[in-house]
């Protein structure tokens, strides 16, 4: 009897307190569910890269995951294939060129759009945003026919020029965002403090777009380096960029050499991403506590 009463009192007492606990448990369950879902999506997003990296280390002569044993044999194998090295050098050269040129063009065009009136400015602005939307395959075939019309033979230069269409809109956009964050009166203040026009640009304007410029340059670098669709139309069999080389290799081969090349490309992209992240971070932290 006493036990029953005790249980009753215990239940009665726990009831009001029970509710928030239940809600807390529900909240925790929901948070866990959310985290599990996010982890799944993350796995989905990263899986292909992780698999590529892992299977490049396999000792088997065919691609398999998980890899059987661990070896760097396939990376050594790469050195015996000069065509991959040539392609890598071509790709990196074109990418570096595209990065430098599109950064310069992006800075100039961004400045022009941001602060000078000129005829056709709004058209230019709109073209920069629509250049993202045109399918690269259509652009590729268009460039193929246009270059033929102009009688321009395939060369690293034609490829670089083609890549500018992909990269310049991004650098312009980044520069514009940087300039939008610049207080125009800071430039007037600098002039008022005795700075000549080039000094104003160097000390005030350029620092405001430095982050966007570096991020834009590295974005252009990997966009050009990774591009396949445009390159497929613009290159010849003698001049193949690394993605084109892999794409063609894949048609006939299925060995871990490709995963080794892929891993090299991923590492290359990762370096660029870290730099972009750093720079954008620096831009975000402009004026923030250095101790943080």
């Amino acid at each position, binding site marked *: 009897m006493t036990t029953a009463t005790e249980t009753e009192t215990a239940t009665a007492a726990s009831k009001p307190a029970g509710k928030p606990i239940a809600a807390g448990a529900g909240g925790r369950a929901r948070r866990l569910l959310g985290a599990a879902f996010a982890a799944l999506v993350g796995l989905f997003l990263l899986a292909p890269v992780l698999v590529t990296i892992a*299977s490049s280390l396999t000792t088997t002569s065919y691609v398999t995951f998980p890899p059987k044993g661990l070896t760097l044999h396939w990376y050594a194998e790469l050195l015996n294939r000069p065509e991959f090295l040539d392609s890598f050098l071509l790709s990196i050269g074109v990418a570096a060129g595209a990065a430098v040129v599109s950064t310069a063009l992006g800075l100039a*065009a961004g400045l022009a759009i941001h602060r000078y009136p*000129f005829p056709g400015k709004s058209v230019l602005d709109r*073209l920069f945003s629509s250049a993202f*939307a045109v399918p690269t395959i259509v652009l590729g075939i*268009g460039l193929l*026919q246009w270059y033929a019309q102009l009688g321009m033979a395939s060369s690293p230069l034609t490829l670089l020029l083609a890549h500018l269409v992909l990269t310049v809109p991004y650098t312009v956009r980044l520069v514009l965002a940087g300039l939008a964050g610049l207080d125009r009166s800071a430039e007037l203040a600098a002039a008022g403090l005795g700075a000549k026009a080039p000094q104003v640009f160097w000390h005030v304007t350029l620092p405001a777009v430095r982050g966007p410029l570096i991020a834009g340059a590295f974005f252009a670098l990997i966009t050009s380096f990774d591009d396949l*669709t445009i390159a497929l139309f613009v290159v010849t069999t003698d001049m193949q960029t690394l993605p084109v080389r*892999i794409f063609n290799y894949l048609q006939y081969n299925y060995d871990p050499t490709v995963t080794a090349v892929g891993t090299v490309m991923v590492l290359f992209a990762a370096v660029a991403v870290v730099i972009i992240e750093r720079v954008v971070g620096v831009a975000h932290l402009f004026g923030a506590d250095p101790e943080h």
Partner: protein
Amino acid sequence: MAATARVADGTALSPDGSAPTPGVPKPVRKRGPWRTGLLLASPAIAVLALLFIAPLFMLVYNSFRTQAGDPTLHNYTRFLGDSFYRDVLWHTLWIGALTTLGCLVVGYPFAVYLRGRSPRARNYLSLVLLSPLLISMVTRAYGWLVLLGPKGPIADGFHALGLDAPKMLYNDTAVVVGMVHVMLAYMVLPLMGSLDRIDPALAPAAKGLGASGWTCFWRITVPLSLPGMLAGSLIVFSLTVSSFVTPAILGGPTVKLMPYFVYTEATSNLNWPYAAAIGFVLIVVTTILTAVYARLLRGRGGKEVFA
């Protein structure tokens, strides 16, 4: 004739103070007001004109020519008159629709999840989200070849459970999985943008009026994030139907979409006018479809959401 003019305190009176205008007029340069701008923009204008607009005009022009260069409509009548190519077009649009749907189903909860995270966590998750766009599409597609292959880890999983693994490679499934993987960021980023714009006081306000969590989600969060959904869907759809590499690698010989024919006509058959026509049909159909979609969604979402 006396009147009392009542003027409030200076602060309230002047609209000047309430709207802190930058107030600094741009210095007007007397000579050539637009010369500097044009000079600075000219290299970029040249790039766009010579490498973007001119090739596209070239393409449209060539699509109305025979291979010998005579004017013709044959390229279009050939495409539209052939049920094989019409099926290719439908198949392409179908893959585009499935990918868009897939991105919405995966991306919406992900965007909602990101919304509640700390800026730091958001930053890292965004990096993961963007990673497929930052690595070579060849590497990416190759990874899926391994994952979805008959001896891949997913098939192994089925076998471990004593089941027959379904065919996962060289079919629509493989293409859609590969495309959702790349396109997810294009869906999630605009969604995050419109979710961020929702006044955080709305949900507590609705709950205070008696709405449950779900009602709140369906009646407030979803309608207010329609602009993001719209923008995301449009980008994902248009980019998917014009993708070449991922479908070519993961679709194998059975899944042949519009971009594949653009490529083969241009490079293998060397029929440039026909390749141009297929490319142009793709652009036109995509433009029409996205316009219709935008209008439909706009009608449902109500004007105020898009105002």
